[in-house]
């Protein structure tokens, strides 16, 4: 018998597996075809080119109800990436602070941080999103409360308005920009910042060279500070920077930048929830570095801050970063809960309104999965590259 021969055994099993697989695919596919035929439906992606007919409240690119469903999907993708990006940043900040403080030798702070971690880790993120959204909508005042002589709410510093529809902050404008379009002016500012970045790199290279030559590392803090701020501020002044302060006009605040309630709820909830997990990773990463390493470094006479920077962190990061990256993936996936608060991410546009208005359930869900799969593949490529790059050399 074939399965008794090691050479053919695995082949036999694989053929059986292939048959079972093919059979189940055939079964599912056949059901699908039959069901679709019975319902008079067919699979087609042409709806993507049709007019969407609905409006979206947060768009990063030009979009209105005459745009296509495809464009609505792209709006959604950008919104997903937007909230995921900001949530990754803030979650990392929360996580690192909480993780490090949890190891603090201040007992009270350490305990408070463990309470934070335990509370946030053990309650579903959906509940957090809803709670924060509820704070946004039910606790903050509506724009109406700012109106009239006996207004019950007022703007913070006359610059920021915290309303139940979102937070309005002043937006910068250039009066006498060097270019006509605002975008180009901003690109110039960004170009300056990029320039500053490279300049600080040069400064630290210079400091390192100096240290290598003389042994003393010159302090670069003030130089860097100047490099970061002076050119940009000068540029902005030249271009006539002015702030547009949000003001109540009609039903809503107008002017300034609006950060919508759903965005804030989602962003904040994802950050603070994932932050708790990241805190655990950070703590585990630091604890994974044996006490011997710290002792050896101290015994060599290194100061605590240097022990941290030169010995503990470089090693801890190798432990921390891989789980950190999977937390980023989790954030991206969890951002699909946007649907619970009406944030217009990809799940809400393509997987929500488009799906419902066109009835193209199968197509929309497939596209949706494709999008998330692509993201997760990209993230795992990044992770593998990183892991290979920092792997500790062993025998």
């Amino acid at each position, binding site marked *: 018998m074939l399965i008794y021969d090691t050479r053919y055994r695995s082949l036999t099993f694989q053929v059986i597996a292939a048959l079972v697989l093919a059979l189940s695919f055939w079964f599912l596919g056949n059901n699908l075809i039959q069901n679709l035929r019975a319902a008079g439906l067919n699979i087609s992606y042409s709806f993507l080119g049709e007019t969407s007919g609905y409006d979206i409240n947060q768009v990063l690119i030009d979009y209105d109800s005459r745009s296509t469903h495809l464009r609505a999907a792209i709006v959604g993708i950008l919104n997903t990436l937007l909230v995921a990006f900001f949530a990754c940043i803030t979650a990392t900040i929360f996580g690192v602070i909480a993780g490090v403080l949890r190891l603090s030798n201040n007992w009270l702070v350490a305990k408070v941080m463990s309470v934070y971690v335990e509370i946030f880790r053990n309650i579903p993120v959906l509940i957090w999103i809803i709670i924060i959204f509820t704070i946004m909508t039910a606790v903050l005042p509506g724009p109406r409360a700012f109106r009239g002589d006996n207004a019950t709410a007022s703007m913070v510093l006359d610059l920021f308005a915290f309303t139940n529809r979102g937070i309005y902050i002043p937006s910068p404008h250039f009066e006498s920009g060097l270019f006509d379009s605002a975008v180009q002016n901003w690109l110039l500012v960004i170009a300056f910042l990029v320039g500053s970045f490279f300049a600080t790199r040069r400064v630290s290279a210079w400091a390192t060279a100096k240290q*290598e030559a003389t042994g003393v*590392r010159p302090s670069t803090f003030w130089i860097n500070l100047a490099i970061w701020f002076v050119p940009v501020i000068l540029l902005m002044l030249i271009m006539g920077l002015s702030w547009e302060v949000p003001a109540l006009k009609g039903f809503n605040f107008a002017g300034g930048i609006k950060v919508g309630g759903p965005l804030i709820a989602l962003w904040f909830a994802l950050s603070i929830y994932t932050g708790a997990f990241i805190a655990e990773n950070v703590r585990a990463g630091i604890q994974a570095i044996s006490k011997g390493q710290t002792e*050896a470094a101290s015994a060599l006479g290194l*100061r605590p801050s*240097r022990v941290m920077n030169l010995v503990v962190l470089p*090693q801890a990061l190798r432990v921390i970063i891989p789980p950190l990256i999977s937390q980023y993936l989790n954030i991206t996936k969890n951002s699909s809960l946007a649907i619970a608060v009406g944030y217009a991410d990809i799940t809400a546009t393509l997987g929500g309104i488009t799906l419902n208005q066109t009835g193209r359930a199968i197509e929309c869900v497939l596209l949706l999965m494709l999008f998330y799969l692509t993201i997760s593949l990209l993230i795992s490529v990044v992770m593998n590259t990183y892991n290979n790059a920092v792997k500790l050399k062993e025998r």
Partner: protein
Amino acid sequence: MSELAIEREIDRSKMQVSDEVAIQISGMNKWYGTFHVLRDIDLTVNRGERIVIAGPSGSGKSTLIRCLNALEEHQQGQIIVDGTELTSDLKNIDKIRSEVGMCFQHFNLFPHLTILENCTLAPIWVRKTPKKEAIERAMHFLEKVKIPDQANKYPGQLSGGQQQRVAIARSLCMKPRIMLFDEPTSALDPEMIKEVLDTMIELAEEGMTMLCVTHEMGFARQVANRVIFMDAGQIVEQNEPEEFFNNPKSERTKLFLSQILGH
């Protein structure tokens, strides 16, 4: 117990002990919580002295030498290292740590840095040595411990014996005036023990002040000026190695020696 080190012929005449005091401990007491680990320790070590500390497990040997460079703090008594008193003053601690090198049982090399970087790290950041000079000095000491060719490898790629020798070189790069060893060979395979002991003997020959917690009695016989026997947090006996081994005075020491030399 490996007696390999004995094979090496050494020139005791080279090893000088001066009258200058390197370490002075008086009336030192330490507690872990309510547990009294070190009791009334009095010890004076002269410059150039090589002291071996022995004693049963848990007797406080490690704790004692870890107090000497402030890895542990003591609660009572005085420790003066190289003229500087160990207090909670951070400046003093820093000063003492840069004078005192330490080798751990598990080497504690930094696995993310090459051997060379391990050796230059502290000189560059603590002593503010220019990098070139630091590298030269590191190579010098790596040659001394006979592994200059491994300089660009990572600790994980070296054998245990080689790693311990790197650890010694790393300490030496700080030009310490005193070296502390905490069971430097007990995590090693027998062949590797010899490599490390050889390196330590060489150091001894150059007149380095050394405190060494070890059970390598061959090493003790060969290089120590003094053997200190600790039990239950106290120094129970101290003597020259020959006297100590051949003619132990206290009951506790006799028992310990009979166990340790017995098999």
